[in-house]
């Protein structure tokens, strides 16, 4: 069964389609240029008013990516961390000495960069050499706090907060189970991890109070705070799940808002940078824009294909890039 959402407003006609020619695994924007990360070797850059170009960035699989306003940083199974700008110019930022896979990358404030290979996490401020922290198990995810040089590192049985410039020991937040992704709230008060089981875990950093967010039908592989951090949008269900983070207790003792039900799993979520709107990509290729306030939906792509693997908004919120597992991609102009 395919969900075409035939009766809702549509922006499908404003799509500039692109056949990536390879599975898309992530998407980012560098100003007005959409950047699609391909599963192997290359990026696909689509400037707003120009032809696409396809710089090669790794000799093998591209395992991870992150971006700030000026560059997309990727980690590969060739052991390299590579930064690429909007012109497609790539620089190798680091090469793992053991040529291990670069499983995760993150970009932080003021040009800071982090990556991980196996049980080692690395941080490099905009200047200076990289610092290393050995973790008790393989790193499951990395996220910078919004301010200062603080890195949240998810791993087995908890999360480590690392302050590379401070003399203090890294702080360990324990919670049993395997933590596979990390995210810090925009106000820096909460840190969230996605777990191996279909659940999220969170800690309020002020008092380290635990928060459990469960009820999912699948492992949560995509989570994103809405603008201003009022809501945490997540995949992992056949709906868009939104946990309330407005109050001082975050979602503790609250139930999530559940919007945009579909016949298949929501795979990717991406919050609009300026409005309380979330783009949701589903396992049948459907993409919806969902207004958090009232659940109103706009059709951005029909659900007639492969699972959506990537969604990204431009910084202005006027363009949405999507990419699917079968290499179908596009940019929707909402300006």
């Amino acid at each position, binding site marked *: 069964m395919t969900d075409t959402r035939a009766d809702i407003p549509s922006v499908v006609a404003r799509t500039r389609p692109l056949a990536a020619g390879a*599975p898309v695994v992530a998407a980012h924007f560098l100003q007005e240029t959409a950047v699609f990360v391909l599963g192997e070797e290359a990026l696909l850059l689509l400037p707003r008013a120009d032809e696409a170009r396809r710089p090669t960035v790794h000799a093998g*699989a591209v395992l991870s990516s992150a971006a700030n306003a000026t560059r997309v940083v990727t980690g590969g*199974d060739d052991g390299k961390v590579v930064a690429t700008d909007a012109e497609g110019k790539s620089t190798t930022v680091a090469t793992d000495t053991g040529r291990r896979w670069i*499983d995760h990358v993150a970009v932080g404030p003021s040009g800071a960069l982090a990556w991980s290979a196996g049980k080692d996490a690395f941080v490099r401020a905009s200047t200076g050499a990289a610092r290393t922290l050995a973790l008790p198990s393989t790193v499951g995810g990395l996220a910078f706090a919004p301010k200062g040089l603080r890195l949240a590192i998810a791993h087995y049985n908890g999360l480590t907060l690392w302050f590379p410039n401070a003399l203090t020991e890294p702080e360990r937040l324990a919670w049993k189970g*395997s933590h596979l992704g990390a995210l810090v709230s925009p106000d820096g008060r909460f840190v969230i991890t996605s777990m191996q089981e279909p659940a999220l875990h969170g800690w309020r950093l002020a008092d380290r109070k635990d928060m459990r967010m469960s009820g999912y039908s699948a492992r949560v592989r995509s989570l994103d705070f809405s603008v201003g951090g009022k809501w945490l949008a997540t995949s992992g269900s056949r709906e868009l799940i939104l946990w309330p983070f407005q109050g001082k207790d975050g979602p503790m003792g609250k139930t999530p808002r559940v919007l945009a039900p579909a016949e298949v799993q929501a795979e990717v979520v991406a919050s609009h940078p300026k409005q309380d709107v979330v783009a949701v990509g589903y396992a049948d290729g459907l993409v919806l824009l969902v207004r958090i306030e009232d659940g109103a939906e706009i059709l951005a792509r029909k659900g007639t294909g492969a699972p959506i693997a990537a969604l990204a908004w431009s910084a202005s919120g006027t363009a949405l890039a999507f990419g699917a597992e079968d290499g179908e991609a596009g940019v929707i102009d909402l300006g």
Partner: protein
Amino acid sequence: MPDKLPVTVLTGYLGAGKTTLLNRILSEPHGHKYAVIVNEFGEVGIDNDLIVGADEEIFEMNNGCVCCTVRGDLVRIIDGLMRRKGKFDAIILETTGLADPAPVAQTFFIDDNIGRKAKLDAVVAVADAKWLKDRLKDAPEAKNQIAFADVILLNKTDLVASDELGELEARIRGINPYAKLHKTQRCNIALLEVLGRNAFDLDRILDIEPEFLADATHHHQDHDHHHEHEDGHHHHHGGGLKHYHDEEMQSVSLKTVDPIDPDKFFPWVQDLVQKEGPNILRCKGILSFKDDDERFVFQGVHMILDGDHQRPWQPGEKRESRIIFIGRNLPEAKIREGFAACVA
């Protein structure tokens, strides 16, 4: 839905010949490309740009269940390999000699992302004919690997006398009567016997059934060698096999032609694997439910069960329900009693 990539798991106690088998698989001119996950680089003598080192990180889940474990490194590695899936046809995973195959198998059931893209093809255990008897006494890991396997290579048969070999076979059968058993030297085996087995495919549960359930009750007196050798390759043994009952690891086979009540069966089997899950290594079965024209098949590893309606019963097909459990110190009488009570 694109085809899922098959994953073959090679197990075997230290020195049994896993690496020999792996090198054989990689070097034969079969026209396939394999991605290989190994524990020790360097032992693999073949050039292959798709070799990945594993860490064997076993992660428990946060659900209070000690046997619900996954191989955390596999979640990461298979996801990474999938990004290059046009570059190879299958994945071969070599485990360490002391590894428990269960967390590997459970990874495919528990992690929906892995389960969607890859599937377990078979667990292959390589056993050293010269030392297996000793290992079954002193190494629980070795017995575990035999009990868990879909395919067993009794290797280095040139190092033991033929009567000793017959005894080893009987000991293996006492633990796991359902696996395909091959006797090899230097892991010399047709690769089709090891790869592409579909042993975890629910649709295939019946295909391996006639042998595996022909006489699965495990400790009868002097019956013939009913189990194995369906391929007719190596009929060395003259008389009937001796039959060993392993004190610790056994199988229990149940069958009935009476229709089963699903409302009784599911609570019973759920409860059974909840309580006995740590001891049940594997289970599988075919069920004929009351007022149901479709055959239901299921399989499980420890506490994790996976089942589905498979296809309509064919006209003239015998509607019989059959289940097997392989495990440690299984309470056979209690299991039989419980299953009997599921009859509609």
